[in-house]
């Protein structure tokens, strides 16, 4: 295939003279001649790819992509009350400054000497999330809350040798779907059954009677969330843990760590393994690209040996007073264990571990507490104001930053209401009507420190007006 020279700024050896010289050095006239020595004729593509013409000039490329993206709106242009697993929190500038450092942005899998700083930053992530959770073990985070929960319940299943888990019916259906995939198995004996535990229709919290009834000597773990997908603060963690432990089961708790300035660390009410979503800790939403799932546990060998994640441990070096880092029990991971490993691991979200470490360092204990207080009060203010609107009921009274708004009394569907709000430049809360039919026409609203009083009043006015139409 003879082609015109194509010099590209990302390909230094595309310069025809250089390419020619290198070809001569390796004893070939052209690339096709070499490929023909590797790949049989019948498998080689004998035509150019049919693709759009290249935009080799950066300016042209920028214009093209900016024009495409200009068809979007976002939560800066619109006023948004969306959450449901991806939340808009303020990202301090230092987080972005570190996230864009060439060294961290473009490192990958280098060694513990050449990437010492990356190892230390990840160790600090583990240490800081450990402080928030009051737990002694964590690892390099995984993709998102769902994957973390999936890994965590499988850890519990292996530890107990049991094949059933109890999860709250109020769990995010998307997250539950991820966990279902982790629990299903091509091997019938390997399947982990998932039992849904009801929630109290008044409070949204776990129905302890139902939990008591379903927990048994088959139960590998009881999984609960705090705050739950529906925003509810689960007040009965202690009771749920006792039920689980009485049945010889592990307790796995999923958390939104931004709540931990005001909410107790789950270990205090009995959690053995904690997982959750670190995106609120200094990571932009990025259309869902900011997810970062973490796992933590007590420092006991029986937990550590079941982690699928890479675990960075601090150690000493040959120089007195100097610290270094390495991988703990690396043979657990699929990089060494292949099919005998604990689940699988791979490229996950290393950069987000570093960024959230920066966030937790900036916030400190006071920042986390003040932010928690700020958010919970503001969310309750918004809920109270919305509850004053004719036809609106706030379903569950105990919540952190998200709350269920029942619009059923208005006679309108969430879809209709959100459509009308959109025309006013507002993204209403997530429509729950198909995910939780029992909640009727309800939406999940999210309020954080990024909302101002004026934003909330604007929502109240618009919603009131839309519902009155």
């Amino acid at each position, binding site marked *: 295939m003879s082609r015109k020279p194509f010099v590209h700024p990302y390909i230094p050896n595309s310069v025809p003279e250089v390419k020619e010289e290198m070809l001569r050095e390796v004893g070939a006239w052209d690339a096709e001649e070499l490929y023909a020595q590797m790949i049989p004729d019948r498998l080689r593509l004998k035509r150019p790819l049919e693709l759009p013409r290249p935009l080799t000039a950066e300016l042209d490329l920028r214009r093209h992509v900016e024009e495409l993206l200009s068809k979007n709106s976002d939560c800066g242009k619109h006023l948004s009350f*969306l959450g449901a697993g991806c939340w808009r929190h303020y990202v301090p500038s230092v987080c972005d400054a570190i996230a864009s450092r060439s060294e961290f942005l473009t490192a990958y899998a280098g060694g513990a000497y050449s990437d010492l700083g990356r190892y230390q930053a990840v160790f600090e992530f583990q240490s800081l999330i450990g402080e928030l959770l009051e737990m002694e073990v964590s690892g390099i985070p995984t993709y998102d809350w769902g994957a973390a929960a999936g890994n965590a319940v499988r850890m519990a299943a292996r530890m107990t040798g049991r094949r059933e888990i109890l999860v709250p019916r109020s769990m995010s259906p998307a997250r539950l779907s991820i966990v279902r995939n982790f629990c299903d198995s091509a091997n019938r004996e390997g399947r982990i059954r998932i039992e849904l535990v009801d929630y109290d229709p008044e409070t949204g919290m776990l129905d302890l009677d139902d939990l008591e009834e379903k927990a048994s000597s088959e139960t590998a773990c009881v999984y609960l969330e705090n705050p739950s997908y529906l925003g509810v603060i689960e007040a009965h963690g202690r009771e749920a843990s006792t039920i689980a432990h009485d049945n010889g089961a592990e307790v796995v708790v999923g958390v939104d760590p931004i709540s931990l300035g005001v909410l107790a660390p789950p270990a205090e009410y009995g959690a053995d393994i904690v997982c959750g979503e670190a995106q609120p800790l200094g990571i932009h939403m990025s259309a869902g690209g900011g997810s970062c799932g973490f796992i933590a546990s007590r420092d006991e060998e029986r937990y550590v040996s079941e982690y699928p994640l890479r675990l960075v441990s601090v150690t000493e070096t040959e120089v007195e007073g100097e610290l270094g880092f390495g991988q703990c029990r690396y043979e657990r991971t699929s990089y060494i264990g292949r099919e005998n490993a604990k689940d699988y691991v791979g490229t996950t979200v290393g950069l987000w571990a570093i960024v959230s470490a920066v966030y937790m360092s900036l*916030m400190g204990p*006071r920042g986390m507490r003040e932010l928690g207080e700020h958010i919970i009060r503001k969310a309750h203010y918004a809920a109270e104001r919305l509850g004053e609107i004719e036809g609106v009921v706030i379903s569950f009274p105990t919540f952190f930053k998200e709350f269920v708004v029942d619009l059923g009394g208005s006679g309108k569907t969430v879809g209709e209401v959100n459509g009308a709000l959109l025309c006013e430049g507002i993204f209403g809360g997530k429509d729950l009507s198909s995910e939780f039919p029992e909640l009727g026409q309800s939406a999940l609203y999210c309020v954080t420190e990024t909302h101002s009083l004026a934003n909330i009043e604007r929502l109240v006015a618009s919603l009131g007006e839309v519902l009155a139409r």
Partner: protein
Amino acid sequence: MRGMREYRAPYWNEPIILELGSEGERGVMVPKLEEGIAGAVSDAWEYVPEAVRRRRPPGLPELSQAQVLRHFLRLSQQTLGMELGNDIGVGTCTMKYSPKVNEELAALLQDVHPLQDEETLQGVLEVIYRFGHVFLREVSGMDAFTFQPPGGSAAAYTNALIIRKYHEVNGELDRRNEIITTIFSHPCDAACPSTAGFRLVTLYPDPETGLPDTEALKEAVSEHTAGMFITNPEDTGIFNPEIDEWTRIVHEAGGLCSYDQANANALLGVTRAREAEFDLCFFNLHKTFSSPHGSSGPGCGAVGVTEELEEFLPVPVLVQEDGRYRLDYDRPHSIGRVRDFLGNVPVVLRSYAWAMSMGPEGLRETAEVSMINNQYLERRLLAIRGVSKPYNVERRVDQIRYSLETLRRETGVGTNDVANRMVDYGVQSYFKSHHPWIVPEPFTPEPCETYSREDVDHWADVLERVIEEAYADPELVKTAPHRSSGHRIKSEPLDDPEKWAMTWRAYKRKRGLK
């Protein structure tokens, strides 16, 4: 050329952040609640049930802003990212340049929420659609793509779930519970199907050619075969010329074939999954398609399937109707989800931008130059004493698994030592091999297209220098690194429950520190 470049890594001996700061320092302030809110609501603690109130503040550090910034900047300086070093050694990872303009374009998505009304997502949905429907379909020959899997292993796992669902829907899952792979395929090709509950059958290479044995495959397939997970070229850089025979054998037994194309860099526009008759494939967008590796993610494993398997893709599936883009959740046979929302959308955007800057000529040029760089580096490396290229297949595609067994035998210096010593020259510690080490004392460089001839020569020069040192003064190499950011670690605590420490609080407890 003025001879070998001298390098000295920044050495900060930076404390752990939990050792820094003083009580009361603040890195950022939280805004005060506006009076209209503060005056109207109760104290925060009124809203938190007694049983779950935080009693002790978390033991996070207290530092002012400049001190936090400085700490993490120092850590970044002690990290040899691709943009600073020379990552040719990090084979199987395709450490190519990630264009800066794409970072700025990806930042345009920062404030997008994935659950926004579709009408307000049309731009980003169009980018995803174009990249899958226009680019990757043509590059692979597959019929449909999903970008939900957030990494390469996650993509292999997704493929395992699709294969599981396919056999389940066909009522054959109870019988079809075996996956075949090769030892030179990535470990995730074994681990991911295993996580999905399959039994693994692993084929080993012919000691002469390095190629997995077709006869062994014929013996391995049976009515239990659910599928095959394989890379091609494998880690050795050897392209299996009988790959279409392999897929035929597996198909004939009733299995599906999944092509691990995590790094397909030297094959763009050269050969495709379609012509080799694969049913599924995946590309790592953080490798071949230039999205930055991000200290190990976020990434994306773009999964492509044939029309027959499209119904099993994770939801939501992006569809185009009359020029509008819509997310379709109504897919009865879908495997459900492997990742919340739409996956790592900014990674897809960067990859799209990169591919648009390349076009058909650029993708082919990427492949050719990567492949030529590999031949060129080989010529340099095989001229170095102590370096050998196992297996008698002459031409390798994108990378080569070399061996330093001769060096080790002659000097006692092994591949771990050489990797550590190369760091002293400002070159990233190279990738040796996945486990197990079939090739003794292995290393696996991959000189992809964004490295200049000068870069390739520099990498070879450094290796040559280190090997000269190994012959002249083995101790020098065995005690390396000497000019890096740290010194040789004590590795025994890493596996000892009494001493390992994944957090600073564990370290302090175990070492009796306050």
